[in-house]
């Protein structure tokens, strides 16, 4: 079975060029079926690899260049259940996005399908590789395809601008990471993550290691859209075609968080062990800021794709908190939550896609009450909103409960539970508000900032405007994804199993043993976390909070107007300032990026030395 290890990357690398080469004469059904089959094959292969790695993880050495005396000179895929599982999850979402696109728009000469497959190859390689340089290479594969897919609708200006902001910000992040790879290579003479980790583990963290860590973490957190490196994300999501947004929010952003977790436990956990408390404080802080700013911005949007994008930023903040707790339980919560959130968010973007396809706009107020034509989609959106809010007892709730348990297990971090509740309630509430206004016609039909309505107009196809029908597939696919969220977390053994594999992931002492020496490392025994009555209470509070927030958004205008004028004005000013920061100006974004990196780099240098 391990013979097949390279195929999940290779299959899309072969099918992608084929689609591009024959695209100009191949019929549409050929593109669709080849791309979907390739995506399905990759998903299956990744599942097989995860099953194969379940008893003990293993390394696959490209070209047969096995390490000699523990020294790796070749490139390895270091395959464990967490990495292969994440790759399989990416495969599932790519498959879903391709099936959804069958009836969504007129794809162009195989280029769309080809780029989607290259994007998938980048994500899968990223999740499987065990080599630091190779990780950055696959980051770039992913990026190159993602930039082009963002700018897909070239007949308008906005997609080009959104894609440029995305490309420039992420390329700078790429440079930062290459500098960090150079630093670590100069120090250790190694590129394999296991070997770098082994070489660093016997030393203290000095400025070189700390700077390398900061650049790598913040580089990947640029992809993950942590504040203040996040500005590109909303711009890119607002303009990218819906099937592409599904992948951005559903898995690409989460891969950034995955890379941070992998690098921490494999490379930096050794030298930074004496400073774990400081690392935790710094990155939990970053996560909280991201979670709260994202939630606030999410609630302020009327452009539905932007709203969903900010909700992704907010949930990434939660995930970052979970990783930064630096505990196996926290990371288990992250793993479960990534699946629950990814499927939910993918389904919500697909619902937004139905609205775009049908009405050629994605503005909440323009669509007031018009959604009554497609009530099923409204139902899906409401279910998605409640799942986003972490309603018990489904997958997102399971993940959130683990995060809560991990937070209260650490002295001084119990307050994070309040952050999770606020994030869940506000993002879920914002989506519920949209569902109420669009599908039920609740609340006023005119909202603040009417000038934003124009930016929300979008044609799915170059030549076609609004359409009078909705293909069944475009409703079926998001419905299936939501069923996944409802069911997966409740499968007996799913969550405890995830916990065991994640505890294997965080056992950083074992990693070099199985990667460099081929040792068979057994799966650790972990007592499964229990979901307590408190967790159900927190889940209920989040869900009720979401309903209340939605109600406030729909019917709260009289309440807001009854506030004292001064309070109202200062509130509006604060909102105006935060909004004004997200102005689409790439110069601003880079200034903020530099400020964020120098600030966090400075704090790390002072606190961890």
């Amino acid at each position, binding site marked *: 079975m391990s*013979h097949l*290890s*390279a195929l999940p990357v*290779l299959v899309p*690398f*072969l099918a*992608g*060029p084929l689609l*591009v*080469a024959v*695209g*100009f004469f191949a019929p549409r059904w050929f593109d669709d079926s080849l791309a979907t089959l390739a995506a399905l094959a990759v998903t299956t292969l990744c599942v097989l690899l995860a099953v194969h790695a379940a008893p003990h993880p293993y390394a*696959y*050495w*490209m*070209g*047969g*260049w096995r390490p000699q005396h523990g020294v790796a*000179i*070749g*490139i390895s895929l270091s395959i464990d259940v967490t990495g292969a599982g994440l790759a399989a999850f990416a495969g599932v979402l790519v498959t879903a996005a391709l099936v959804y696109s069958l009836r969504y728009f007129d794809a*162009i000469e195989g*280029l*769309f399908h080809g*780029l989607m497959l*290259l994007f998938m190859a*980048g994500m899968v390689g990223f999740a499987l590789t065990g*080599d630091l340089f*190779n990780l950055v*290479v*696959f980051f*770039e*594969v992913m990026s*190159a*395809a993602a*930039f*082009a897919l963002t*700018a*897909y609708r*070239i007949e308008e200006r906005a997609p*080009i601008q959104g894609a440029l902001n995305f490309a420039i910000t992420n390329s700078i992040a790429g440079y930062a990471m290459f500098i960090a790879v150079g*630093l670590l290579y*100069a120090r*250790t*003479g190694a590129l394999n993550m296991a070997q770098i980790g082994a070489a660093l583990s016997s030393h203290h963290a000095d*400025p*070189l*290691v700390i*700077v390398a860590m*900061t*650049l790598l973490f913040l580089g990947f957190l640029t992809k993950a859209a942590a504040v203040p490196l996040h500005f590109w994300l909303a711009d890119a999501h607002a303009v990218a075609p819906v099937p592409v947004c599904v992948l951005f929010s559903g898995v690409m952003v989460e891969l950034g968080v995955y890379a941070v977790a992998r690098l921490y436990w494999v490379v930096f956990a050794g030298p930074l062990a004496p400073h774990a408390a400081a690392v935790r404080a710094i990155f939990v802080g970053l996560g909280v800021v991201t979670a709260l700013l994202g939630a606030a911005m999410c609630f302020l949007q009327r452009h539905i794709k932007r709203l969903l994008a900010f909700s992704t930023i907010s949930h990434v903040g939660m995930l970052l908190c979970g990783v930064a707790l630096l505990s196996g339980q926290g990371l288990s919560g992250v793993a479960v939550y990534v699946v629950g959130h990814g499927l939910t968010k993918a389904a919500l973007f697909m619902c937004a896609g139905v609205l775009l396809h049908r009405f050629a706009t994605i503005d909440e107020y323009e669509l007031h009450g018009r959604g009554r034509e497609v009530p099923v989609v409204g139902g899906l959106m409401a279910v998605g909103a409640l799942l986003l809010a972490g309603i018990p007892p489904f997958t997102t709730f399971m993940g959130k409960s683990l995060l809560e348990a991990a937070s209260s297990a650490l002295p001084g971090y119990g307050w994070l539970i309040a952050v999770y509740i606020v994030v869940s309630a506000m993002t879920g509430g914002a989506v519920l508000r949209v569902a109420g206004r669009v599908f039920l016609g609740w609340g006023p039909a005119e909202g603040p900032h009417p000038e934003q309505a124009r930016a929300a107009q979008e044609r799915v196809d*170059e*030549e076609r405007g609004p359409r009078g029908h909705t293909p069944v597939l475009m409703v079926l696919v998001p419905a299936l994804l939501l069923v996944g969220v409802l069911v997966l977390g409740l499968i007996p053994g799913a969550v405890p199993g995830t916990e065991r594999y994640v505890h294997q992931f965080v056992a950083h002492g074992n990693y070099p043993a199985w990667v460099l020496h081929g040792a068979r490392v057994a799966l650790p025994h972990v007592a499964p976390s229990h979901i307590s009555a408190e967790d159900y209470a927190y889940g209920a509070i989040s869900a009720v909070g979401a309903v209340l927030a939605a109600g406030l958004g729909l019917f709260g205008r009289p309440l807001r107007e009854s506030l004292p004028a001064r309070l109202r004005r200062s509130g509006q000013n604060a909102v105006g300032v935060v909004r004004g920061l997200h102005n689409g*100006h790439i110069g*601003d974004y880079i*200034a903020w990026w530099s*400020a964020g*990196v*120098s*600030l966090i780099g400075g704090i790390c240098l002072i606190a961890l030395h």
Partner: protein
Amino acid sequence: MTRRVRLGLFLVAGAGLAVVLLLGFGGLPSFGHAHELDGAVVNLDEPTLRHATDVVTALNFDLRAFDTLGEEFILFASVTGVALLLRTLRQEEEEDQEITPGIEDHRFAGASDGVKLTSLLLIPLLIAFGAYLVFHGQLTPGGGFQGGVVLAAGPIAVLLAGRYLSMKRIAPKRLLEVSDALGAAAYGLIGLGGLIFTGVYLEDPLPLGVSGQLLSAGMMPLNSIAVGLEVTGAFLLTWTQFFDQTLVGPPSGS
């Protein structure tokens, strides 16, 4: 943010970033004291175990062949992206049809006879040199990436000679797309040969030959050709896409 605020923020942040980076760079080994483990291994292994005399190519196509696969596809994805973004919209297609019949060749006709003659003389030289670089990848400095760029310069010389439409006839878009895609896929397929015949992806199943001969070092010559094919197609495709935007179509003034 106003221009001034932005500049101020960036100056402060950039200075901070520079300090952070310099503190990190302070930990680098001093000049001449780099870790030489990898270098020693590569210098030792590649000529003896793989019969390659150009160690840089050997590193790219053997030890780090999987990185090269990824890099090939960064290039391929970028070029496919360019093709996607610079595609002709249906609306533009109609506009083009009104204008194209008037164009005999292109608007880059201002070159002097000297430039035209030199360009024509350069064409065979560029192609010969590019092919040399591609075919001698494992022997002397060069290889598919470098040779591909030189090969792509050949048709560009046709453009410099004042014949853009001739260049497009020699290297039509479809052909370039196919060569780009074929080269990228071929590299992956060569590695698959390793999986089928030795059981490990990217492992070398071919006889290694005699060091220094044209056909030596196993798969490396094939890899070099695949990369050369892709790079030639990729560069020409990108250039012609951009030329199409500026040289053909309505004059920029109207």
